[in-house]
């Protein structure tokens, strides 16, 4: 901040001159060193002034810009600037309009622009327009990125449900359904639905449900498993259960649920082997 010296100078002319000069210097510094990109163009869209922040934003130096037509260097911005002149009046300014500006490298920056006109003494003729902006490219990018990630999470949740419990056809007519982790009732229903539909679509005659990935089981999941097995058998396919861990086995017996209606094997490998043998014999 420059200090205006409150000195009474004898000659009035000198005082005003000095004051003016100081004021002008002050404004010059403000303009030049402002962090906000500022550009001034005249009524025929010729670029009059820019500051270093603008050089920084666009990658052009003042010598490259001053004297050039605005819409030649910046087509998009320039065309908007053309229409601006008519829109801005003495009382109205342009505030926070998003206009893109392409810099020297061809990169597009998104910015929020303010603009105002300088008028001639008559108050009506536009002498020049001054515009400043805030570069919001990064902010917008982050916004879009966040939106995208959110959508991805939503999509992935749906996809996970398919991926986590894939049905693998090991041999013609035999599929393995590996169950993993905790299965809530909604997912359980989806799994059963997919399983039974696959039986119809692919002419499956044996389903191997592998519980190796199940660490613990509660009453409703156990019941659901039982119902799934029953439905499989009702449709005419065989159900084989493999990979029941000891603690899971205990929980199932404690719950009183009988999975006797299906053959069980300790390991998935054994189950597959037995099924293949049976198929060959048939």
């Amino acid at each position, binding site marked *: 901040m420059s200090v205006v010296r409150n000195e009474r100078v004898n000659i009035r002319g000198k005082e005003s001159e000095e004051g003016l000069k100081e004021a002008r210097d002050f404004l010059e510094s403000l303009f030049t060193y402002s962090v906000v990109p500022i550009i001034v163009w005249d009524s025929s869209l010729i670029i009059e002034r820019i500051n270093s922040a603008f050089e920084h934003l666009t990658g052009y130096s003042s010598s490259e810009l001053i004297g050039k037509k605005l819409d030649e260097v910046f087509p998009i911005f320039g065309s908007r600037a053309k229409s601006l002149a008519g829109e801005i009046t003495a009382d109205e300014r342009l505030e926070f309009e998003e206009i893109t500006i392409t810099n020297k490298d061809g990169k597009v920056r998104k910015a929020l622009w303010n603009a105002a006109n300088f008028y001639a003494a008559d108050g009506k003729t536009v002498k020049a327009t001054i515009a400043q902006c805030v570069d919001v490219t990064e902010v917008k990018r982050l916004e879009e990125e966040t939106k995208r990630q959110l959508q991805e999470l939503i999509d992935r949740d749906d996809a996970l449900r398919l991926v986590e419990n894939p049905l693998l056809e090991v041999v013609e007519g035999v599929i393995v359904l590996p169950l993993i982790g905790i299965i809530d009732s909604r997912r359980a229903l989806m799994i059963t639905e997919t399983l039974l539909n696959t039986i119809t679509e692919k*002419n499956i005659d044996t389903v191997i449900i592998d519980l190796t990935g199940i660490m613990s089981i509660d009453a409703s999941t156990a019941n659901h498993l039982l119902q799934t097995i029953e*439905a499989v058998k*009702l449709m005419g396919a065989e159900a084989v259960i493999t990979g029941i861990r000891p603690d899971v086995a205990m929980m199932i017996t404690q719950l009183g649920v009988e999975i006797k209606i299906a053959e069980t094997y300790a390991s998935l490998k054994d189950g597959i082997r037995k099924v293949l043998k049976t198929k060959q014999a048939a």
Partner: protein
Amino acid sequence: MGQGEANRKINIQKIESFLLIAPQYMIHDEVAEGFKDEVLEKIKKTGVKGLLIDLTAIDVVDSFLGRVINEIATSSRLMGAQVVVTGLRPAVAITMVEMGLTFKNVEKATNLDKGLLILRKLMHSNEQTKGY
């Protein structure tokens, strides 16, 4: 709205040495009962040793229809015929299991071809055990 004469038509076809029942229309109660008698009559008349019930076209099996099918199966078995049920839809299977319904005294198969295979085997082995 009439009872729907069209609904009365349930095909019972004799194929080779067995009967194929494939309800094309949704069966309503009155029809189902009469149908049962018809089937048993035909088994008696033709002396077939096998019955294939295809439920592909059935969208709902409730306790009534379940009972009828079970009764057909049990009676047929008593008359010396093997019974195989095929084509049960996934949604129907789940619903039946949730309700506590099941088919007793029948073999089940996922589709008609498999059902035929099973039926033939059953009929064959049945003859064998009866053989001398």
